[in-house]
């Protein structure tokens, strides 16, 4: 950054770029347009500022999201007014549902045209109010620097989330002195629980753990976001409580650990769901009892005392009556509990039968599928990717069957390894989010697993991979159909298939090659292995079109509206 003299006046755009650099932003994902021309112009004078041009605003925001989820830093994206801004909406809602910290900058028409239905005008602040943690409309250039700092504070503290800053064109052009905002206009976002209240609850929780015969811990995305994996590991080591993870919690507790029972919920493992049904004490850490986890609420942990550790007071008691509320940061609370418990729990109840039962379920009723020598199975591909990357890759997924198979068959070892749209379930997320994850983690293998449906929702970003040599390994599990919808129509709608054929899809190999991305196709187990080795050896991006069997179903499955105990195991389960 050029040194500024005290009397120097700079544009709002210059202030924006300087503030982003001061906030430590490594890369902005964006797309220019009329209302942000001053901002793009200012990039000429700031060579330190890195901007990645995507091919669609939706690609930009999903990339920023993948960057944020995989690094723990705040993702930033930039778009113009009107359609540029509205193209971000799906990505903003995606980040909001999964508590991902983003700062989204949009241009807007000049202030004197606001409200006149002028060209490319949209009330993006109004539109995004329900799907942002907060949003700002900057009226005066003097407020810009402070607003940006506030946006970063809000996005990155407490329960994280997306924050949008809308800047009219005249504000990005206006001149003012640049003053670093020392004082912010923020109240404390997450007032902490009174220490004695929290302390009382911890004492009660430890007593409950000692007396519990059937305890289970439900680890959600909050474990990942608060960097609490080590504390959780220690907590489980001392208490011996088995762990169920949610989709977003995967990696927060290693899939290799003995006491890990698997993911719970609609497509959860048998042992995990049995634990959720039969427990007498359920300790939820950073999970929000999503309906895909609990299924029908009266069948969820019906006989359990519920303890809920969450940073967001509004989550505690929202869906499940909570006897032990512990409001606060998961990492701090687990660390405190670990200190209080020490090296020995001193149980008053016997948990051995419970643990034996669950481990027996885990061993005897594992996730499985019918192997085939003649037909390539999607689950086989995921297992192969897991095996060859030793569970150490960053894996992004789209939404649907392949997402659930990834959750089931990839053995995640560490946090921030699974990047997936859990809450909103956004198709088109899987591929662009991998681009952001790779930008944030240049030294790790990033694998993007997609279906043939979702791959076509943001395929244009292949250009970004090619031109910037972003070495994402792009997996398409191509079954020629919208698999999850087909599965529901098959099981719940009496095989009345409706609009699920994806006939007319492009040849994905040719599509990739047309963009300049190397690609190959696999139709058998052997081809899958050899193509995948080629992909891993390729220094640049590589796409593999895995032509997989069309009729695979994701099992176990709990139909919507049913209880966990109504889990359907599928024919391949013993």
């Amino acid at each position, binding site marked *: 950054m050029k040194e500024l003299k005290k009397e120097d006046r700079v544009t709002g755009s210059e202030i924006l770029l300087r503030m982003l650099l001061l906030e430590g932003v490594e890369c902005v994902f964006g797309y220019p347009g009329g209302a942000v021309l001053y901002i793009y112009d200012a990039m000429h004078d700031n060579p330190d500022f890195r901007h990645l041009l995507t091919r669609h605003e939706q690609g930009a925001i999903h990339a920023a999201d993948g960057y944020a989820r995989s690094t723990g830093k705040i993702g930033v994206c930039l778009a113009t007014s009107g359609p540029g801004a509205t193209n971000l909406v799906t990505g903003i809602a995606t980040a909001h549902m999964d508590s991902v910290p983003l700062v989204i900058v949009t241009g807007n028409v000049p202030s004197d045209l606001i409200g006149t239905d002028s060209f490319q005008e949209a009330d993006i602040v109004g539109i995004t109010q329900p799907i942002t943690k907060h949003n700002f*409309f900057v009226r005066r250039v003097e*407020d810009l620097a*402070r607003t940006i700092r506030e946006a970063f504070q809000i996005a990155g503290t407490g329960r994280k989330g997306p924050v949008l800053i809308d800047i009219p064109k005249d504000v990005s052009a206006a001149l003012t002195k640049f003053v670093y905002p020392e004082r*912010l206009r923020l109240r404390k*976002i997450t007032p902490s629980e009174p220490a004695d209240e929290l302390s009382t609850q911890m004492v009660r929780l430890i007593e409950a753990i000692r007396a519990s015969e059937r305890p289970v811990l439900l680890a959600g995305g909050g474990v990942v976001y608060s960097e609490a994996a080590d504390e959780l590991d220690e907590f489980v080591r001392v208490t011996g409580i088995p762990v169920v993870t949610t989709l977003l919690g995967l990696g927060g507790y290693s899939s290799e650990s003995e006491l890990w029972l698997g993911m719970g919920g609609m497509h959860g493992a048998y042992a995990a769901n049995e634990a959720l049904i039969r427990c007498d004490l359920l300790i939820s850490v950073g999970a929000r009892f999503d309906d895909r986890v609990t299924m029908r609420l009266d069948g969820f942990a019906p006989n359990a005392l519920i303890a809920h550790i969450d940073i*967001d007071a*509004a989550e505690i008691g929202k869906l499940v009556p909570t006897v032990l509320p512990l409001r606060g940061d998961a990492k701090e609370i687990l660390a405190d509990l670990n200190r209080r418990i020490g090296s020995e729990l001193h149980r008053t109840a016997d948990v051995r039968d419970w643990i034996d039962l669950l481990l027996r379920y885990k061993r005897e009723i594992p996730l499985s599928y019918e192997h085939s020598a003649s037909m390539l199975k999607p689950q086989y591909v995921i297992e192969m990717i897991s095996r060859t990357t030793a569970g150490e890759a960053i894996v992004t997924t789209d939404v649907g069957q392949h997402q659930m198979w990834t959750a089931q068959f990839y053995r995640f070892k560490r946090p921030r390894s699974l990047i997936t749209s859990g809450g909103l379930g956004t198709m088109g997320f899987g591929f662009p989010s991998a681009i952001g994850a790779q930008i944030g983690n240049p030294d790790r293998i990033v694998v993007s697993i997609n279906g043939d449906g979702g791959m076509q929702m943001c395929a244009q970003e292949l250009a970004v991979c090619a031109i910037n040599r972003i070495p994402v390994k792009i997996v398409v599990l191509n079954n020629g159909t919208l698999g999850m919808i087909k599965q529901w129509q098959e099981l719940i709608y009496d095989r009345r298939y409706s609009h699920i054929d994806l006939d007319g899809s492009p040849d994905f190999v040719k599509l990739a090659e047309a963009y300049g991305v190397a690609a190959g196709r696999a139709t058998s187990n052997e081809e899958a292995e050899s193509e995948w080795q080629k992909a891993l050896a390729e220094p640049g991006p590589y796409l593999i079109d895995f032509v997989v069997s069309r009729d695979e179903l994701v099992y176990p499955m709990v139909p919507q509206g049913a209880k966990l105990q109504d889990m359907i195991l599928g024919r391949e389960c013993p």
Partner: protein
Amino acid sequence: MTDRHAISVLVRNDPGVLQRVSGLFSRRGYNIDSISVGDSGQEHLSRMTVGAPGQEHLSRMTVVARGDEPQIRQICSQLGKLLDVVKVEPLSGKPTIERELLLVKLTAEPEKKAELLSLIETFRSSIVDVAPRTLIVQAVGDRDKNDAFLRLLRPYGILEIARTGETAMLRG
């Protein structure tokens, strides 16, 4: 049990804050009876704006919502998460004063005027506008009182009703 609960909310006087609060109620499906807002006379003293002189003015919003205890707790928690909300105070179960302003336009038939005036007197309300064929009556009271008053006014020919929704304050 679904009861009416008044919640007092102190908010920053920023543009859009009413939309943020009302939007929260509609998207989460909370039942809202009334919402009223006005200057609180208070200023946010703790933090000053940078570059902009002066303090932030706070508005007081009174929301009357329907729900059971857990629902009202949830509403308060969700309100507390809005960045523009400075303080949330559920008022139910506490000694409060709740008042609503009611304006009623009536047909003023001469033969019933004496009766009407005595009713207005009884409810300690007043006539604030007199026209050849109509008059406007103003009443201040809690919702139940205003409801009762309206029931009694009905036979006199109500033309229009305007109610502000309750605003509330803790006693003492």
